[in-house]
């Protein structure tokens, strides 16, 4: 399974196929000179690269509007913290502000609370204890592009994930300031994005009250030491460490304490997976339950080699990558050169926290000329191990099987 993508220069074929699609945008648009090729069988395999989105660097365009911008995979080899300008972008509705007035912005806290709040950014910045945590944000549909058989949805390769050090305030402290009333069971979150059509469902997600008050769920006004890019949720974003990015509400301005689970379609109809082991079923299979997507699962990726790379036969070859444990820390990363029969441990890099990417490295040697595979497998602190069997479900969610990298020894 390809886990890397390659950048090709603007090819004639790319331009011709864009024209064949009836589009003029690639030719008339701004600075879409490059094409990215995911080399995925069945296509469409290529996407435009862009630098035209505000506060963002080179990104892969999965969708122009509302933006789905994927992080180019080579970024993950440069360190465990994804640069803000290449942190992936995903919006559900296109109608979100292009400007936020930092003086008049207010975070409303209401519902089952003793003292409803309308907190200014100044109050959030100065009146509450500061909290920092490193965490991976990963779209529930990361890697959907590689589902076999293919499924509908955002056709993300492996780059709808990013890691950042977030700074802000604990949700617990905000809730305590408002005073949660007895009988409260859930907290629902909404942002400044709105559906275009009045009957369409506003994008909201909810957490149960104990999770909301766990002291790690936070409201971030900064990532990696800078205020949030607008497209990543300026001025305030809900951070749910260890949980799928669908919960990480951007431009957060509404917190409602309730006495019921989230009734919205974003939980009752979308973002659901089979309740089977590894959320995996056979295509066409019936008779299983569906549950909301919640926590992330362990994953690991080689970052310094690409599929098809040639390495010298019999020579020491450094292999480097990143892993994350999901809702627990990374306990181990192991490599296999024999299709998963035997495993050798990689050396883990600096621990930046339970929910962060963690870099790992190892040295391998490929003994004979020809094709070889390298597998990297993460085990988290709860001893949850990436499965060897390919994950598949109708929504294309929560893919986390062991990645296989094809190399050639020469």
């Amino acid at each position, binding site marked *: 399974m390809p886990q890397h993508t390659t950048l090709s220069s603007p090819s004639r074929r790319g331009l011709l196929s*864009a024209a*064949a*699609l*009836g*589009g*003029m*945008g*690639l030719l008339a*648009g*701004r600075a*879409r000179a490059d094409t990215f090729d995911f080399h995925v069988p*069945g*296509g*469409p395999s290529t*996407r435009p690269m*862009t630098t*035209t*989105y*505000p*506060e963002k660097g080179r990104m892969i*365009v*999965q*969708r*122009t*509007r*509302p*933006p*789905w911008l994927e992080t180019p995979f080579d970024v993950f080899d440069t360190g465990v913290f994804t640069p803000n300008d290449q942190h992936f972008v995903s919006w559900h*509705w*296109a109608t979100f502000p*292009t*400007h*936020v007035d*930092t003086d008049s912005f207010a975070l409303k806290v209401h519902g089952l609370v003793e003292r409803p709040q309308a907190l200014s*950014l100044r109050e959030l*910045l*100065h009146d509450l204890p*500061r909290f920092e945590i490193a965490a991976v944000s990963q779209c529930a549909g990361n890697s959907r592009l590689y589902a076999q058989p*293919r*499924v*509908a949805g955002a*056709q993300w390769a492996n780059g709808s994930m990013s890691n950042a050090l977030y*700074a802000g305030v604990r949700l617990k402290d905000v809730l305590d300031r408002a005073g949660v009333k007895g009988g409260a069971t859930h907290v629902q979150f909404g942002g400044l994005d709105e*559906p*275009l*059509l009045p*009957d*369409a*469902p506003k994008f909201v997600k909810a957490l149960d009250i104990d999770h909301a008050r766990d002291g790690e769920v936070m409201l971030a*006004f*900064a990532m990696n*030491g*800078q*205020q949030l890019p*607008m*497209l990543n949720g*300026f*001025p305030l974003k809900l951070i749910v460490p260890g949980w799928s990015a669908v919960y990480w509400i951007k431009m957060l301005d509404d917190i409602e304490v309730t006495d019921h689970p989230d009734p919205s*379609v974003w939980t009752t*109809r979308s973002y659901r997976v089979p309740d089977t082991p590894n959320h995996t079923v056979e295509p066409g299979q019936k008779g299983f339950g569906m549950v909301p997507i919640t926590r992330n699962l362990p994953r690991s990726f080689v970052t310094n080699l690409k599929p098809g790379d040639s390495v010298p036969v019999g020579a020491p070859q450094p292999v480097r990558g990143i892993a994350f444990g999901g809702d627990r820390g990374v306990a181990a990363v192991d490599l296999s050169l024999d299709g998963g029969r035997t495993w050798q441990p990689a050396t883990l890099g600096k621990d930046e926290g339970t929910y962060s990417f963690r870099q790992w490295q190892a040295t391998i040697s490929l003994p004979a000329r020809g094709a070889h595979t390298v597998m990297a497998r993460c085990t988290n602190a709860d001893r949850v191990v990436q499965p060897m069997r390919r994950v598949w479900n109708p929504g294309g969610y929560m893919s986390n099987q062991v990645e296989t990298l094809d190399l050639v020894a020469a």
Partner: protein
Amino acid sequence: MSRSLRTALLAGLLAGLLAGSAPALAAAPLELRPTPEIDLPFGDDIGFPAGPGSDVIASNCTACHSADHTLNQPALSREEWHAVVDKMITAYKAPITPEDARVIVDYLARVKGEP
């Protein structure tokens, strides 16, 4: 405040000053900079390939999302396309008539091909 945190704050402040840009966050008290109005390149969408039904899919679908959303999908069966269009109508409340929904599924099956 711990010594290491103080050191980090100072380093952050210096980094911010040296960069001549926004001060590092850790250099408390942080103030969020007002940001200029952002300009989103939504006009860069490539649009739907012309052909039977292209006007119907464009008028029904592109209010909420650009055409590249659809064109980047894999080849799917007519049943799968029907399920996608049905979800847009029933879950996300796209006001698509049954007749237009049929035209859209025909268009997708033709333009995207079947697996």
